């Protein structure tokens, strides 16, 4: 089992991505799921959106040189809805994203992100608007997400963020990689299974 990795702070530049209900088909279109490893997925993140916005002369943030190397992604509401593909947070993480801040997240996307050590936290719509505008005006400005105090410090502004207590706990203690925990009590799992009539055959 790999060593415990605690994730308490994420510091870096910010990439803003505006829009409601951005689904996982847009984050990574289904044709790029025809793979047997997650390697290289970052090359296709938002590929169709990047192409369609390029046509309109409105370059997508993930295609703009000035955001290369950004670590904190700021989105809006219901980010990551749609398919359960873990390829979506994998692609974002491999692109370089180390934390996502948004108004809300789809549950499966949120769960997948936690499972791979990518914290997703929520903030108010006002704060998100401010963060996005700031990153658009100055892509070099950094921010620091502190999970122990559940705050995001951006310049002088200290923004309250939140996530379920169990998720925060998981990152801070390194328990986000749940497999080890789940494997701990093999005898109890066996006993539970044996009690279930559909396992024992009624």
């Amino acid at each position: 089992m790999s060593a415990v990795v605690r994730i308490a702070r994420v510091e870096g530049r910010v990439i803003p991505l505006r829009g409601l209900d951005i689904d996982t088909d847009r984050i990574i279109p289904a044709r790029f799921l025809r793979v047997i490893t997650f390697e290289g997925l970052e090359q296709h993140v938002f590929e169709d959106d990047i192409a369609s916005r390029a046509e309109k002369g409105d370059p997508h943030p993930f295609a703009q040189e000035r955001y290369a190397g950004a670590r904190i992604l700021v989105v809006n509401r219901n980010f990551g809805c749609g398919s359960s593909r873990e390829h979506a947070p994998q692609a974002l993480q491999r692109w370089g994203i180390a934390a996502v801040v948004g108004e809300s997240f789809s549950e499966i996307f949120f769960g997948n992100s936690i499972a791979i050590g990518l914290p997703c936290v929520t903030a108010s719509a006002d704060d998100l608007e401010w963060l996005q505008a700031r990153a658009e005006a100055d892509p070099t400005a950094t921010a620091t997400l502190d999970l122990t105090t559940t705050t995001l410090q951006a310049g002088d502004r200290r923004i309250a963020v939140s996530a379920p207590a169990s998720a925060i706990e998981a990152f801070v203690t390194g328990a986000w990689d749940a497999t080890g925990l789940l494997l701990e009590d093999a005898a109890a799992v066996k006993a539970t299974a044996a009690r279930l009539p559909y396992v024992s055959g009624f």
Partner: protein
Amino acid sequence: MRTLPTGQTQLFIGLHLVHEVTTPQAFDDLRRRGWPVRFPERTFATVDHIVPTGSLARPFQDTMAEAMLAALERNCRDFGVPLYDHSTGRQGIVHVIGPELGLTQPGMTIACGDSHTSTHGAFGAVAFGIGTSQVRDVLASQCLAMEPLKVRRIRVEGALQRGVYAKDVILKIIQVLGVKGGVGYAYEYAGSAVDAMSMDERMTMCNMSIEGGARVGYVNPDETTFAYMEGRPFAPQGEAFDRAKGWWRSIASDADARYDDDVELRADTLSPVVTWGLHPGQSVGVDERVPTVGEVAAEDRPLVEEALQFMGFAPGQAIEGTPIDVAFVGSCTNSRLSDLREAARFVRGQKVAKSVRAMVVPGSQAVRAQAEAEGLHEVFIDAGFDWRGSGCSMCLGMNPDKLQGREISASSSNRNFKGRQGSPTGRTLLMSPAMVAAAAVAGQVVDIRKFEPAAIDASLVGGRA
């Protein structure tokens, strides 16, 4: 089972369904760490997303699809997991074959690396989609770390009109409660309309819970459920079946159970529903008009504007009469035998419009065989439909069945996201399979409540071949 140090609950998974897209990385992880699959006998695999629905000659022409199936075959062999591939006669979309084989049972916890796992909740199971890391967790431990869910009961009361189906009910629910309305909730469907539904219809409802933001859909098990289960290959048999029924009854939620939220929808006033936009909540009754930007809430305006533009709709135009290029009957939402029967009713003796390419893709090999035993394939073929092999097909762009360019499809599937059906500029109108069949014949979106095949403009009618 127990509370984990993080405060989450460790949940035992009674049934783990596996398919080729979301699992290769999980099996590789197991190999790397030297872990076996803890309960191979509670794990079942099939292949659905990437399989061609035409020739199955191996190796597949598509080398990546071949690599994915080969990886699944190797993983199942190495880890002792049964694989229901085409050679078994039991292959099909994972959410179609689970129930069909009797693997899906009331009271089970069911997980699968696919968001439409909510389908299985129709049996009174707690079933939800997971990502690849969680697939690894379940393979290794047969357990998951979970947060408790709130439950919203959605009571659908009254009788559905002729031409209105479970698909319309769930599209309406998503329209009313929104695509994120269910986040944090399980949706429990109840009420007289749900009580009267067949298992196929309940599966359609639970299937699209995820489009409403709810990870879990659920219907209490009842006599309809038990009748469906009886005699299925993996269902308990004989006296065990009677004992099972007793247990299944005991796990149903009580009549006086308390819910975190409770909403009611009238079934009798519903029209057939059609989506016009870029997510499943952007829909109208077939007798209604697409919105104008001015009439929606300010925060929704950018999305509505984007959707109208992408779809090529004028604000406020009628959805009925929209010409279509492609008709697709299939997907885990609507590819079961009853869906095919209902679609065939609108096709019998008719011809697919000249301008339309139409296809029927049964959900499983078993559905296909049953449909052929009833002669449904002839009804479709005679009308000019393509009668295909089982799989996910044009529900998503991972196999050869795809939209081309800006083609617009009438589709019985579940997602109308940009690019979903394989072309980045392709367009999708979601509706019931009967509405898809009627649209194929008419060459345009029609209201099946007044669909009179004879009254269709003669210039639109004619075989394709």
